């Protein structure tokens, strides 16, 4: 296998990975290599993000770090890690200031001041945007420009990570596949920053891009890092579920629209008479999930959205969503839309400390792949803030290690543990007779989506989770019986095969965590355990000797 050497390897080029790179680059002159399995800077969830929550010159006079931190902890329902909430509250003001200094232009209101928006759960208005409601895109473009201006950052598109490389208990690189040539590489580095985003594609309906297949969780698990609270998946409560071509599209104006079940009842009057649709994402998703489970669902398994009374507001604030629906035959000024929860954000993830360091030396995690900040319910617009703050922390700490600690001498580790990557590569490159095997890797992905959609959605049951575990085990056995029909360069079949392998690991971690949490808390609603327990604990998963080790860890001081 060919070898590439770099100081820091950054995997993923969303807001978290790119922030990590540009901050690291300010603290070291060693080379930084950013890889992405899609097009760099254009392939993650960051692209779709609308607003970012931050303190700044626009903050209300009573708003401050402590208030921001308290809002996150309240929403996290006991599962937010105080060292992480403190980090984000302490740093966000400065990080946003820096990125605006680098060229990000925040959207202005009619008075030419920074426009600030309210977001449910934030006790003060803190959400700002850029590029006319495309804050994610604006942030990516600013960071790419900054990275391009630093000649020790290299960016490499269309390269997928198969396995992290561990030696003497540290992470010192990764095995990747260049999809353009089908050539595998061993990348040797002094530290790895993993920023591969979320898990939406594990579900049949998701707001996430096609690349969100949960690779980072599976890569970390395999490397021996600890994952926490993987059952805590945020479903965006109101997304389109039909027509298929826009299934998963988030409806940002649900909190001022009306929702009805198939009987024409405005059901939120029953669940949340005070807040109605303007409630937290977990509560609204669970209410819709319960209506569906009770058989009061629309033909495609959702509820009706009526935005006709507020349509002028919708057209003004969210023209992209309005136009897209209209283009697909749903004129929201006259028609109801079929909507329901879509897999949106992984709140659990790889456990980190306030330096974005995982439990394994030299492995850093930033953005959605990390766990512990948002606890059991993420407040809107805090994901981008998380990417900027922990991307920077990961980059700075990785650069510090590079500058201050004794470098890893890769030559002395002649024989890495590359078994898994080798197994994947061998399978990909062996001839696949089309007659004997019919099933292609994309079918495995669809099967996983169907299992998680059926049994690990908004509403969970003991039997359902047990069935999911069994089904996933069966699907796992089928992976190495699939037909990789196209062995050439830029093969989607090969990409699907590798992604399916990551999806299986990550799905199992989600199911096992959901089984461990024998209560209902935040986004995890368990029919057999509908109450929240008094004792608060994290669900933890780690792989040891190829087995998943499960444990519950009490939260201190709650």
């Amino acid at each position, binding site marked *: 296998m060919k070898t590439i050497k770099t100081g820091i390897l950054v995997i993923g080029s969303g807001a978290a990975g790119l922030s990590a790179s540009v901050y690291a680059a300010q603290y070291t002159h060693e080379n930084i290599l950013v890889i992405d399995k*899609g*097009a*760099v800077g*254009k*392939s*993650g969830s960051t*692209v*779709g993000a609308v607003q970012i929550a931050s303190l700044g010159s626009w903050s209300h006079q009573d708003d401050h770090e402590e208030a921001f931190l308290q809002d996150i902890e309240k929403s996290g329902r006991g599962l937010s890690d105080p060292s992480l909430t403190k980090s984000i509250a302490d740093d966000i003001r400065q990080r946003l200031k820096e990125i605006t200094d680098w060229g990000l232009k925040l959207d202005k209101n009619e008075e030419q001041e920074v426009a600030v928006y309210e977001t449910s759960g934030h006790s003060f208005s803190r959400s700002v945007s850029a590029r006319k409601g*495309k804050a994610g*895109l604006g942030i990516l473009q600013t960071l790419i420009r900054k990275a391009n201006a630093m000649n020790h950052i290299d960016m490499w*598109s*269309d390269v997928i990570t198969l396995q992290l490389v561990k030696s003497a208990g540290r992470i010192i690189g990764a095995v990747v596949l260049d999809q*353009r040539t089908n050539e595998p590489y061993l990348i040797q580095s002094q530290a790895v920053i993993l920023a591969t985003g979320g898990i939406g594609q594990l579900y049949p309906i998701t707001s996430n*891009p*096609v*690349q969100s297949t949960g690779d980072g969780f599976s890569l970390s698990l395999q490397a021996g890092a600890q994952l926490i609270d993987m059952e805590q998946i945020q479903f965006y409560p109101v997304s389109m579920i039909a*027509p*298929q*071509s*826009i299934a*998963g*599209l988030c409806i940002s104006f649900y909190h001022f629209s009306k929702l009805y079940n198939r009987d024409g009842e405005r059901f939120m009057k029953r669940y949340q008479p005070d807040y109605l649709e303007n409630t937290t994402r977990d509560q609204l998703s669970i209410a819709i999930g319960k209506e569906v489970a009770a058989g009061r669902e629309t033909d495609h398994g959702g509820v009706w959205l009526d935005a006709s009374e507020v349509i002028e507001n919708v057209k003004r604030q969210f023209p*992209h969503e309005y136009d*897209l629906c209209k*283009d*697909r*035959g749903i004129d929201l000024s006259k028609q109801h839309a079929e909507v329901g929860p879509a897999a949106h954000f992984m709140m659990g993830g790889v456990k980190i400390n306030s330096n974005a360091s995982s439990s394994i030396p030299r492995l850093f995690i930033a953005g959605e792949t990390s766990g512990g900040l948002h606890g059991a319910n993420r407040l809107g617009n805090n994901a981008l803030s998380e990417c900027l703050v922990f991307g920077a922390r990961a980059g700075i700490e990785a650069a510090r290690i590079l500058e201050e600690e004794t470098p890893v001498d890769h030559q002395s580790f002649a024989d890495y543990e590359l078994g898994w990557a080798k197994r994947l590569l061998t399978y990909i490159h062996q001839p696949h007779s089309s007659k004997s095997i019919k099933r*292609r890797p*994309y079918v495995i992905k669809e099967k996983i989506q169907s299992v998680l959609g059926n049994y690990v959605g908004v509403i969970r049951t003991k039997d359902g989770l047990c069935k999911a575990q069994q089904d996933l085990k069966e699907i796992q056995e089928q992976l190495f019986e699939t037909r990789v*029909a*196209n062995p*050439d*360069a*830029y*093969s*989607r*079949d090969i990409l699907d095969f590798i992604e399916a392998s990551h999806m299986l690991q990550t799905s199992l971690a989600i199911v096992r965590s959901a089984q461990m949490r024998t209560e209902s808390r935040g986004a995890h609603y368990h029919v057999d355990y509908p109450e929240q327990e008094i004792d608060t604990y994290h669900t933890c998963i780690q792989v040891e000797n190829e087995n998943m080790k499960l444990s519950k860890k009490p939260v201190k001081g709650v």
Partner: protein
Amino acid sequence: MKKLLVNIQRSGDQQEVFEVEYQPGMTVLDVLERIYQKHDPSIAYRFSCRTGLCTTCMMMINGKPGLSCLKMASPDDGILHLAPLPKGETVKDLVKKM
């Protein structure tokens, strides 16, 4: 079931025509997904967000640059012609280097 004729300019200046089962509401990207799954596993195209934001799915659609995730496919408009964008290096089929 209506059929949709799709002519794709593939690598090596090859033109290939596919006859795809049309389903109402299909975008050009949905058509390519169907070709990948049911007709030819080797067809190469890029996409990410499916909502018109990332622009990675941009290609020549009937002679004009367009986003394949936004453009609706229609069996009544004759043959659907797809080609890579003319500028820049083509990695494979409809995929440009990024």
